[in-house]
């Protein structure tokens, strides 16, 4: 009886695997996201709140931040409704792949390995990775100071900071957390000795928690953020590039930039962490 069951189970698995691995070898035209969005009059934006000041949620649960302003501007330009869907950062690219979302706007760094899975529009923001340490740690001047056995570096799963930390730290241990707030919380609670994350995120976090953390602002690496669409959807990439060319430096963008990056008044609106 047991043997039979196992055989049936294995056959089922084999069938599932066989069914999944049908490769479409013919070059089909990928239906452009742009056409779909215009047709259904809705743009579904995938994001991962918790990346200050790009994407956050305010106390009413509304999505706010520099990226969210950009997404709404895209919606205005296309004359469609904008709908936000929240994911863990590492869940964004899979969600784009399955068609759950149309574009990713989540402070995503343009990287070669990601570009194999999605296509990026031109960069809309230049930033870099920095180190954040507890306020009590006044000795640490650079990430090298923390690269010792017994030290723990908290990172946000799937981010550039996580990959970078795994590359550069030879002796310290790297701990993966779901998102930046969780990694920072681990730092504040003494469960980690450092966090590697994007500079704007660290700056905002320090602005909100000046008594707990301190940023070390020498850029460990430089990078560009980009909007991601489904792979090889060149029509949408082309349109986004044109949009960004007109949006960057426009009154709306300048206002958004100064609101999120030139002062910290917005911190009162953000969901209490």
């Amino acid at each position, binding site marked *: 009886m047991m043997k039979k069951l196992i055989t049936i189970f294995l056959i089922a698995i084999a069938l599932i695997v066989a069914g999944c691995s049908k490769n479409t070898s013919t070059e089909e035209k990928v239906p452009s996201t742009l056409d779909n969005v215009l047709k259904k009059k809705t743009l579904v934006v995938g994001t991962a709140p918790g990346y200050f000041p790009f994407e956050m949620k305010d106390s009413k649960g509304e999505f706010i931040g520099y990226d969210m302003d950009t997404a709404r501007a895209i919606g205005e330009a296309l004359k469609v409704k904008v709908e936000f869907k929240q994911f863990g950062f590492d869940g964004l690219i899979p969600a784009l792949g399955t068609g759950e979302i149309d574009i990713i706007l989540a402070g995503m760094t343009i990287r070669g390995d990601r570009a194999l899975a999605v296509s990026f529009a031109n960069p809309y923001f230049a930033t870099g990775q920095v180190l954040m340490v507890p306020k009590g740690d006044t000795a640490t001047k650079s990430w090298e100071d923390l690269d010792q056995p017994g030290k723990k570096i908290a990172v946000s*799963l799937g981010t550039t900071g996580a990959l970078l930390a795994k590359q550069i730290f030879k002796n310290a241990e790297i701990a993966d957390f779901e998102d930046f707030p969780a990694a920072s919380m681990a730092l504040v*609670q003494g*469960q980690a000795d450092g966090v590697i994350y994007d500079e704007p995120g660290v700056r905002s976090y320090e602005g909100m928690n000046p008594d707990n953390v301190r940023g070390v602002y020498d850029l460990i690496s430089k990078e560009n953020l980009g909007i991601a669409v489904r792979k090889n959807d060149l029509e949408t990439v082309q349109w986004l590039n044109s949009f960004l060319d007109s949006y960057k430096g426009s009154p709306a963008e300048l206002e958004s930039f100064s609101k999120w990056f030139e002062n910290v008044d917005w911190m009162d609106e953000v969901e209490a962490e």
Partner: protein
Amino acid sequence: MQYQTDWSVIPNNLPLFLEGMWLTLEISALALLFSIPIGILIGLLRISRNKLVSFLATAYVEIMRGVPLLVLLFWIFFVLSNFLRLGPYWSAILGLATFSGAFIAEIVRAGIQSVPKGQMEAARSSGMTSAQAMRLIILPQAFRKVLPPMASQFIILIKDSSLVSVISVIDLTLISKNLVATSFRSLEVWTFVALLYFIMTFTLSQIIRYFEKKYQVTE
């Protein structure tokens, strides 16, 4: 949506998967080891005649049952760490053991209460103390009855252990999340991981089945 599958991510990272699987088994086994004494103790206290003792034990069970494991893990890791220096590894084991212990306590209590009252009376009238009667007459009968629900609980524990990935324990789930984050092969990785979890739980249920047969009362 046409999603081009590519299964090469599995053989290329097999050692990683096995490493994660090993840690999952290790954490589950340790949590199980601690949760059984917790469960038996709390289960016995639940049926104590002392009102205060049974109230405290009931409170423990209700609180543990009423809080999601994820929240409990966060609480232990982020809040309790202010008083108790527990790393992710021991936070995970403590969380799983205390959580699972509450469910085991309920199983133990139900098992003991399912033994007919007459058994206790007969044991007492043949001159045993109530502790002796408990140990020699009631518990062995209860033990046989609780094996199946216990088995389910152990399987649930292995599955629940996947949650410890959120407090940076590098178990099978966290390894997989990381692989998906770098390879973007979500369908392939999660399908394989589901299979690995199934292999673990199925093996365990077979082991328990063997014990059930062994202790079966021949009718």
